[in-house]
């Protein structure tokens, strides 16, 4: 367990992700240097040996993702961290992890894109890529962190969800959160809930590696546990072997999708501020959510019934929480450091006459409370 648990610390967002991962039981990190995520690799390199874990710097992000999956298959919780260009390279093996249902966590500290883009400026341009970056229909969970404390607690949650649902979990941070230093009270170890994947309880000869339990999630054996089985990125049957049978192919896709759908109440995390009597509200995530909270507090002082819905889970999109608020309010503001990637989702689920207003910054600057306030008074 993390030595810092239960203590007060001055940490950077990137460092807090490392401590969250260690607290969640992560003992393997593979990565490739990239700004603004490199501190995560550096901290893991420093700390993992003492935890009997392994750090390795691979030749690129494709290899990093491969090594992370390998470690998880051998039973050791693993993660990697990168930024946009590296995240692009990871999409190939990320799809493998979705297909073969290998738990793993990927942090993307977002910077301005496309291509090499703006290496040291904040952005939120990788939101839709986190959901749809790898090819084919696939399940995935995408979480966003807004503070140093979030970077710790949400990382623990990311590992827990990944282990519980056997699905890759993406943590989206941004340059502002990653490099901000804040004083945080890390919870004591006894208060940190850690979930591990369920292992098979049947004898090896009865083991069917891809037969879902009641939740649709198959128990997972590690390589070397005595449950010899086959793992492939080809669409496979319950035994894990490639199949061309259309019934089996459909059953595979439906189970992968439904295991996440069944977990919606637990997976879709949001934070609500001043929403009970709100007439207008803001939907925000990442560092922007903090500017939004300031702006909403100011608006309340000016007599505007404003609220904030902070999204922790971006995907699966928390429609169940968003829809009733769209019904309740006359307008919603969606500020983002991109051209409008979550506002698309809001518009998609909006079946009322609630007005969806976008506020976008794509100039490498973060969004200030004043900007959001100015919008709120006009809604």
């Amino acid at each position: 367990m993390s030595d810092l648990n239960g203590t007060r610390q001055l940490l950077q967002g990137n460092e807090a992700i490392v401590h969250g991962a260690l607290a969640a039981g992560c003992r393997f990190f593979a990565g490739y240097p990239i700004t603004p995520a490199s501190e995560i690799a550096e901290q893991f390199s420093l700390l993992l040996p003492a935890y009997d874990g392994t750090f390795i710097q691979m030749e690129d992000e494709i290899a990093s993702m491969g090594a992370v999956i390998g470690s998880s298959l051998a039973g050791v919780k693993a993660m990697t961290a990168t930024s946009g260009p590296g995240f692009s390279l990871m999409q190939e093996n990320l799809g493998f992890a979705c297909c073969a249902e290998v738990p793993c966590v990927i942090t993307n500290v977002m910077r301005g894109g496309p291509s090499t883009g703006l290496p040291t400026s904040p952005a939120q341009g990788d939101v839709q890529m986190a959901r749809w970056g790898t090819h084919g229909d696939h399940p995935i969970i995408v979480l966003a962190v807004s503070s140093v404390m979030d970077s710790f607690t949400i990382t623990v949650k990311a590992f827990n969800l990944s282990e519980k649902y056997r699905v890759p979990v993406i943590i989206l941070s941004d340059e502002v959160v990653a490099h901000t230093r804040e004083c945080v009270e890390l919870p004591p170890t006894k208060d940190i809930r850690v979930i591990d994947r369920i292992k098979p309880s049947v004898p090896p000869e009865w083991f069917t590696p891809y037969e879902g339990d009641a939740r649709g999630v198959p128990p997972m054996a590690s390589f070397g546990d005595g449950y010899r089985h086959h793992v492939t990125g080809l669409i496979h049957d319950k035994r894990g072997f490639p199949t061309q049978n259309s019934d089996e192919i459909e059953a595979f896709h439906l189970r992968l999708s439904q295991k996440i759908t069944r977990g919606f109440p637990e997976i879709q995390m949001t934070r609500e501020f001043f929403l009970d009597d709100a007439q207008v509200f803001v939907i925000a995530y990442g560092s922007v959510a903090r500017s939004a909270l300031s702006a909403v507090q100011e608006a309340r002082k000016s007599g505007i019934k404003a609220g904030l819905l902070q999204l922790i889970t971006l995907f699966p999109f928390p429609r169940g929480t968003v829809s009733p608020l769209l019904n309740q309010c006359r307008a919603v503001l969606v500020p983002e450091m991109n051209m409008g990637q979550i506002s698309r989702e809001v518009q998609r689920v909006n079946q009322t006459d609630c007005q969806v207003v976008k506020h976008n910054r794509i100039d490498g600057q973060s969004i200030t409370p004043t900007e959001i306030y100015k919008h709120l008074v006009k809604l």
Partner: protein
Amino acid sequence: MHVPAQELRKKYLRHDKKFPHVWCPGCGNGIVMGSLLRAISNLKLSKDEVVMASGIGCSGRMPTYLDFNTLHTTHGRALTFATGIKLAKPSLTVMAIMGDGDSTAIGGNHFIHAARRNLNLTAFIINNSIYGMTGGQYSPTTPFGSYSTTSVYGHVEHAFSIAELAVTAGASFVARTTVYHADLMDKLLEQAIVKRGFAVVEIISNCHVQYGRRNKLGGAVEMITGFRDNAVTVGKAAKMSEEELEGKTTIGVLADREMPISIEEYAKIRKRAQEEKK
């Protein structure tokens, strides 16, 4: 030690699950698989301790048929997955089986870095000079001037020598054989599996369907006997001139060296860090 083929098949193949296989009649992959099973049997490795990873292509299907912990990864990436497995659970015997395009085109970067990194991993590369599964396109080992579905006017690029590449990149053990030299292959695979550090065996194989046919090299028998006629042992090759070696295949052990290997060095760091923590 001779174990009857029937026993090997019964012990190591997923005979009741995954057959028939996808390989064409006469394919060298079956010879390699047989040799691999003899090596594993001779070394008395427990099936639970063996991990076999592969990439994409005809060679990539081999683990599917074998009753070990098997992993069929993405194209060219077998060694990256194998690296994660080995580091996470060093007690496992981890092998990667790859093709020529798989290991030296799309996976070329991973291959040279695996050799440089020198973990306790074993890589078997079946080199048939072509992309067979996708229909006979040229690979990094397709010889200059030869024909494929993407070099219909004759190939204008020069081929990689995979084993020599591995030697230069720093692998602890490098050997080459052909599917004709099955006895030698048995011995080399055994040596490679037990070797401390990264071990590579390049196995020259025949794709008479996609390569031999287009280059008038005959069927499986003609191609495999061609390997016999073209092979020169490492010892003999040392006494031959460059001109005499033109077009020949050097077989045997090309490198066998001892050096500090990363996984053992990292274990020392881990031990030290844990002692300091106390």
